[in-house]
Every structure is written in structure tokens, then in C-alpha cells.
């Protein structure tokens, strides 16, 4: 007879409502992403390999606008290559892979100068790694190691601050190959 306690039926109703809401929230962007829009500006990232959604020949091509439309994340961290603790922002790798419908076990991230590093899919899915498009709100030029810079959240996860992850922190990213 305590008024604060929900009756079982009422609780079930609440649960159903919550589930409905969640499905609606998740469903909307997924519907919109079912076909990848073609890039309108200069392509700065090409995701190829085991990708399900394409807008170019066997690959998903992104311009800055397409990347900006994906879920963004801010990572404020120190890195070995920057002074102080800049604010890096950009889409998470997981959201980029989601947009390209990628299914694979690892990624090969290739830079403009053909430097390449392999990133296990666990990193992309389990760690909020971003492809930074901006530093402190400013777009990154090639001369400042842009346009895309792989940024691990070093400050949140100090255990990542070592050479293995420095090697995976590719800058001047131009391509991502999804390896099956």
C-alpha cells in the first residue's frame, strides 16, 4: 500500500515505453544512413575493403561535411606531438565505420605519405578513438598534420600512452582499409 511503489503492470508499461523510445531514437539515423550520400566537396577520407555501404567505386568516400554529420566527440588530451592539451574534435572511428557499414577484424589506416598502421577492431569499437577534423575548433591543414588525425583518449586512459598506440595514432589520414 506504499504510494511510492509502482504496481507490476505499471512498471511493465514504463519499460515498454522506454524500449519504444530507444528504438525510435536509434532507428531514425540508421534509416537515414541506409544509403550513403555522395560527397559534395573534396574527398578527404576513403573507407575501402569490407564495407557494406558505398558511394564511390567499392568504397565509402567522405568529405568534411559528411564527417561532420556523423556523431562527434571531443577529446581533450596531451599527445607527444602537440603542445599542451588541445581539444580535438571529430567523428569517432566507430561512427565512420558504421556509416560505411564496415564489418571486419582490423583496420589499416593509411596516411598521405603512405605511412600505415593496423588498428584492431577492438580499439575502434571499445575505445572512443576519433578521427580528429579540428584542433581547438580549427580545421587542420596538411602542414599541421591534417586533415585527419587519429586521436586516442590518452588522458582518460593513461595505459594507452605508449609506443604501440603512438604508432596507431596516424596523422594525415587519407584512407582506411577494412580488413576482413
Amino acid at each position, binding site marked *: 500500500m506504499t504510494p511510492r511503489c509502482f504496481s507490476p503492470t505499471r512498471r511493465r508499461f514504463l519499460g515498454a515505453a522506454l524500449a519504444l523510445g530507444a528504438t525510435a531514437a536509434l532507428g531514425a539515423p540508421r534509416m537515414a544512413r541506409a544509403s550513403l550520400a555522395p560527397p559534395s566537396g573534396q574527398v578527404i577520407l576513403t573507407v575501402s575493403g569490407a564495407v557494406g555501404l558505398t558511394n564511390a567505386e567499392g568504397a565509402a568516400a567522405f568529405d568534411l561535411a559528411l564527417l561532420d554529420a556523423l556523431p562527434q566527440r571531443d577529446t581533450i588530451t596531451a599527445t607527444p606531438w602537440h603542445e599542451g592539451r588541445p581539444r580535438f574534435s571529430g567523428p569517432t572511428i566507430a561512427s565512420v565505420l558504421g556509416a560505411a557499414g564496415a564489418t571486419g577484424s582490423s583496420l589499416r589506416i593509411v596516411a598521405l*605519405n603512405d*605511412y600505415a598502421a593496423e588498428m584492431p577492431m577492438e580499439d575502434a569499437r571499445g575505445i572512443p578513438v576519433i578521427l580528429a577534423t579540428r584542433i581547438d575548433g580549427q580545421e587542420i591543414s*596538411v*602542414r599541421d*598534420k591534417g586533415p585527419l588525425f587519429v586521436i586516442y583518449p590518452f588522458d582518460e586512459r593513461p595505459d594507452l600512452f605508449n609506443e604501440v598506440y603512438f604508432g596507431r595514432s596516424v596523422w594525415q589520414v587519407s584512407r582506411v582499409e577494412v580488413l576482413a
Partner: protein
Amino acid sequence: MKRWRRRSDWSGPRALRWGLAVLSGLSLVLLVNVLHLFGLLGESRRAMDDSVREDAMWAVYQTDRQVSRLTAAIDGALWHGVGSSLGSVVEAYDILYSRAQLLENGSFSLKFEGTDSLSPQAALVREGILGLAPAVDALAEARSVPALRDLRDRVAPVQADTAELVLRTNAALDQAIVAQREEVRRLQQRLGLNVGLLVVGFAGIVTLLALQMRLIAAAGRKLAILGERNRAVAKRARAASRAKSTFLATMSHEIRTPLNGIIGTAELMTHADLSVEQARHLSMIR
């Protein structure tokens, strides 16, 4: 003779105690030293230095490689025509520009302590690369073959400087590796020496302790013998005392009997008629 023996009995344990104290102190000092050396040997700073030096080498290599790519891009543009390949020249230069920042003066000299010839060369390369920017910007404006040739003429000395930097960095890296190996070897030797001395010290302590145990056991045995002897002496003394008591008791009895007779008879004689002379003698007995 007796005094000398007593002194030798005492100085043994005292010397032992002194020896133990000195050895314990020495061992403690050695132990602290060993721990310190061990800490030095395992210090993480060294590993970090290694990694930083390798990063520097990698940065220099990549810079050299990118200069070559820029040269190749310029040659490609000269061959295929300025219009089609200018983008790749500018991109190659932009990548090179981003690399040049990694050759910063301060951190570079930090990475190779003791090899001072390196950081001026790194600064030279860095300034050479950054100095190409106006020529590249002019090329992007003019899009002409003369501008491209001009850029190529400017890149050539930079390429020579980067090649030189690669060689010097490699040599410095080798020197650093040798110096570090030498340092590790020296530390290991010192550590070995200290551990050896420590073992000797402990062996000394164990020996002295064993000696002390033996001395203590010997002293205990001596004490036991002395106690036994004392007991025997006491027993003998008690027997003598008892004999004396028995003798005295018997003797007094033997004397008392005739004495009573004499005293009684003297008493009786006082009632008899005695001459003056006799009376005087009698009073002497009483």
C-alpha cells in the same frame, strides 16, 4: 699466570662482539648500495630515452624520404606538364612541412646528449624546409615551368642537408647505444662487486656467530664442571662439620663423669677435719 688466563677468557667474546658489529654495519652499507645500484639499473628513464632517440631517427628518415618524394613530384610535374601534377607537388611539400616541425631544436638536442653536432644540422634542415614555403606558394600562384625549376633548384641543397642529417643521426644513435651499453656494463660490474662483498660480509658474520656459539657452549661446560666441583667440596665440608660435632658431644660426656666425682668428693671433704694447708688446697679445687 692466573691473571693472564682470566684476561684471555674475556678478550675473546669482546673481539667477537666488535667483529660482529663492524661486519653488520658494513653489510648494511653494502646492502643499501646494492639496492641503489639496482634502482639505477632498472630506471625507466633509460627506456624512455631509447624510445625518444628512436623516434628522432624515424623522424629524420621520414623527412629525408619526403624530400625525395618532393623531388620526384617536381620531376614528374616537369615531365608531365605543370597543370596536371602541381597538386601532388604542393601536397608533397605540405607533408614535408609538417615533418619539419618534428626537428625542433630544443627537443632534438635533448635526445642526443653529448653529441652537439646534431642539433645545428637539424636546425639547418628545418629552416631549409620552412624556407621553401614562399617558393611553393609562388609556384601555386604562377603555375609555370620556371617557377617549378626554381623550386627544384632550391630543394636540391635541402636534400643534401637531410641526407647529411640522416648519416649524423645514425652515427649519434650508434654512439648513444655504445655509451649506454657501457654504462649498463659498469653498473652491472659495480653491482656484482657489491653483491660479492656482501656475501663475504655475511659469511664473516656467520663464522663469527658460530665461533661465539662455540665459546658460549665451552663456557657453559666449564660452568657445569665448576658447579660439580663446588658441590663435592660442600659435601666434604658438611661431613667434617658433622664429625666435629659428634666428637665434641662424646668428649664432653667422657669428661663430665670423672669431674662429678671430684666435685662431690671435694664437697664431702669440707665436713672433715683438715689442716690449714689442706683447707687452702681444697678451696683451690672448688
